[in-house]
Each structure stands twice: as C-alpha cells, then as structure tokens.
C-alpha cells in the first residue's frame, strides 16, 4: 500500500508538474473534506445538528442525498427484517 501511494504521488506530481509535497497537501485537504462531510452528515442524521446547519456546512445537495439515502436504507432494512 505504501509503495502504491508513493508511485501514485510520483505519477500525479509528474503529470501535473507539481512538487510531491503539493500533491500530499492536496490529498490531505481532499481526505479531510470527506471526513468532515461524514462527520457533519452523521451528526445531522443522529439529530445532533439541525438541517439548516448541516446545509450550511456541507451544502444542500449532500444533505438532500443523505435524506434520500436514509429513507432508502430504512425502507430496505425494515423490509429485510420483516419479509
């Protein structure tokens, strides 16, 4: 895995003409953004964060998608347990 990461960083750096340190920085920013969105949506779905606050933090599209996914997963699990 570590070798694969190094290879990918090198390839991206070469293709984009960036120093490898810049590639790592961008990767960290993107990863952190994903983790942040996961946290906000988890807090929203758990009722610890209201909808408008969640929309403000991660955007309406992601909150609406999470709403729809929640509905689907709840329907599916309920069906699976009772079919």
């Amino acid at each position: 895995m570590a070798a694969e990461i190094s290879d990918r960083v090198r390839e991206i750096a070469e293709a984009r003409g960036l120093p490898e340190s810049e590639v790592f920085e961008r990767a960290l920013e993107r990863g952190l953004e994903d983790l942040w969105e996961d946290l906000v949506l988890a807090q929203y779905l758990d009722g610890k964060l209201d909808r408008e606050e969640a929309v403000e933090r991660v955007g309406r599209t992601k909150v609406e998608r999470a709403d729809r996914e929640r509905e689907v997963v709840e329907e599916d699990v309920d069906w699976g347990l009772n079919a």
Partner: protein
Amino acid sequence: MTLAAVSDAGPLIHLAEIDSLELLSTFDTLLVPETVYREVETGGVPDRLADLSYELVEADESRIGAEELDAGERAALAIADERGIVLLTDDLAAREAASDADVEVHGSIGIIALSYGRGLLDRDESASRMRALQHETSLFVTEAVVERGIRILDEQ
C-alpha cells in the same frame, strides 16, 4: 413467504465486490434479464454467479418510458412490473421509477438485512457486510446512513 425478485446490474456487481453473491440465494426465484447479464459481462462475470440459481429472461424494456434509466434498469423494471415481483437495484433513479410504477424495490443493503432476518447471517456479519458495501464497492452511500441501517438491525 415465497420471494421472487429480478435484479439489475447494481446488486450483482456490488455484492460480488464483497464476496456476498450467495446472499441472493435467499430469494426463492431470482431472474436476471439478458440485457443485465450482458452489462455485468462487460466487467467480467463474477465467479460466484455461476454458483447461484437464477433464470436468464428476455425483457421488453421499451415498455418502460423512464429514459433516464439505462437499458438494464429498464429491462429489470419491465420484468418486475410484468410479473409483480421485487426489483433489486442500487440506483436511486431506478428506485424512484419503480415506486412510481408501484413496483416493490430494494437494494443491496436490503438483501443483507433480509439474509439477517432469515438467519443466513448473524448481526456482526450483517453489520460488517453493510460497512464493506460502503468502503469496498463502487456503490455510493454515505457512511452515516450505513451506520443508521446497522442501528436499525440492533433495535429490532
């Protein structure tokens, strides 16, 4: 209760990605439209699909007008509608089209929950496979939503 279903490519691919195709044997009858089989074939037919008991069927997908769906989704929906059986899909647009047509529709998470409900999987294995669907497959589902599904398993 006897359960019959028809699947589009999504659940076949996603369950194969987490080595869980055998869960589809929970259904008494499983249909796969030929169009769907060809779609799956382009990515390489999963080895375990051959171990499953399913029937390849032809569908007239032109009777489904939902143009936003791909041919496999339309074929599976046409068969589910025609035969009054469950549609298995992980695509939200296909799900909505099915609901509009009054077709019962469920996805890969539902198949795992069904396997738990019917005693094929225990709670921990069900939770682990639901998490694997989120982490290890091409299915897009928000992590927090999967965790909510696991909590519903615990509540019942």
